[in-house]
């Protein structure tokens, strides 16, 4: 099991000019990232959609690397996104899944069959170009450069220590960083798109 924040710190030097869809990792990524115009922090528009959203971005920007920090709860809601992504085979897509084995923002209840799912095997079986699974930081550290250089879609399952939130939504600390609207506007400006 790894700490989410430490994974992101290991990843950060290898980011290059990739666009990062930070998902539930934004609570740490916002403090680590040094290229915020290429960060897309959307909060949680609707659970289950992050992977297919990032696919859309990867298809629209085939010459830019797209990195998604997904969660296993989100992925379980729409496992079919894996076959959808593999069908398109975006070479520019790196799909991390931060697997804390639970719904961390609702009190830590386990996701279905939390401890017994090999998400990397499922991704590979769906047709991803390559897939990996890490349970310790040292192994990830050794391989992250190669992962970021590979042709995608690349899937990386990471076992992480849960960070449980148990306060009612209205009592939680406000989200870090920009609003989702500002995040979208800044990225579109950075990409020079005005469709």
């Amino acid at each position, binding site marked *: 099991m790894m700490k989410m924040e430490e994974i992101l710190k290991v990843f950060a030097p290898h980011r290059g000019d990739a666009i990062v869809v930070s998902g539930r990792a934004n609570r740490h990524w916002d403090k680590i990232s040094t290229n915020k115009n290429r960060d897309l922090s959307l909060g949680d528009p609707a659970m289950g959609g992050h992977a297919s959203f990032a696919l859309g971005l990867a*298809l629209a920007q085939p010459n830019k690397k797209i990195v998604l920090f997904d969660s296993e709860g989100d992925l379980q809601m729409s496992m079919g996104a894996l*076959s959808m992504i593999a069908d398109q085979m975006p070479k520019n897509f790196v799909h991390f899944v931060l697997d804390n084995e639970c719904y961390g923002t609702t009190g830590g209840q386990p996701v279905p069959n939390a401890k017994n799912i090999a998400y990397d095997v499922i991704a590979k079986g769906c047709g991803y170009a390559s897939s990996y699974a890490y349970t310790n930081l040292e192994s990830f550290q050794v391989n992250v450069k190669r992962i970021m250089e590979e042709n995608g879609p690349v899937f990386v399952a990471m076992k992480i220590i849960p960070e449980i939130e148990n306060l009612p939504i209205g009592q939680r600390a406000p989200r870090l960083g920009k609003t989702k609207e500002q995040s979208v506007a800044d990225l579109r400006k950075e990409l020079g798109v005005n*469709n």
Partner: protein
Amino acid sequence: MTTEGSLSPEIVLAEMKKHGITHVVWLPDSETNWLYTLMKADPTITLVPVPREGLAFSCAAGLYIGGAKPVILIQNTGLMESGDSMRGWTMGLNIPVVLMVGYRGYTRHGVNRDTAATYTEPFLNAFHIQYYLVENSEDAPRISVAFEEAQKNKRPVAVLVGDEYHGFNR
């Protein structure tokens, strides 16, 4: 290709292409199969098949934010499955996208035998989604109205395709 009282897939595609669509995010249904054949042969359009309709909305949001111009092509059954995704990924992110929705069960005479048709318009009304019914080729300009409205209001707008392209509803 058009004949009075039927909906030509060539005309539907031409209407969509007027608005510069780049990607069709879709799940097949009987209403759209003939259109699929045409789209597949068109080198200017990328087809993105989805395994469940809710994923079409999140994917379309990513496409739009990245600078592409997606259209969503699904059946009314799948539209109803997609409620939260439509809310969060398109309405919540101000995504202008047209939903071409196969109106399964629609009958012009209004006697429904299929609850998919019964709940389609109440569903769209519940989400405050503007929609236009297209039954034949003469209705096709409404597709352009939907594109213009989506772009203006930065919201999804639906086109209900109330006819299979071969006109089985009559």
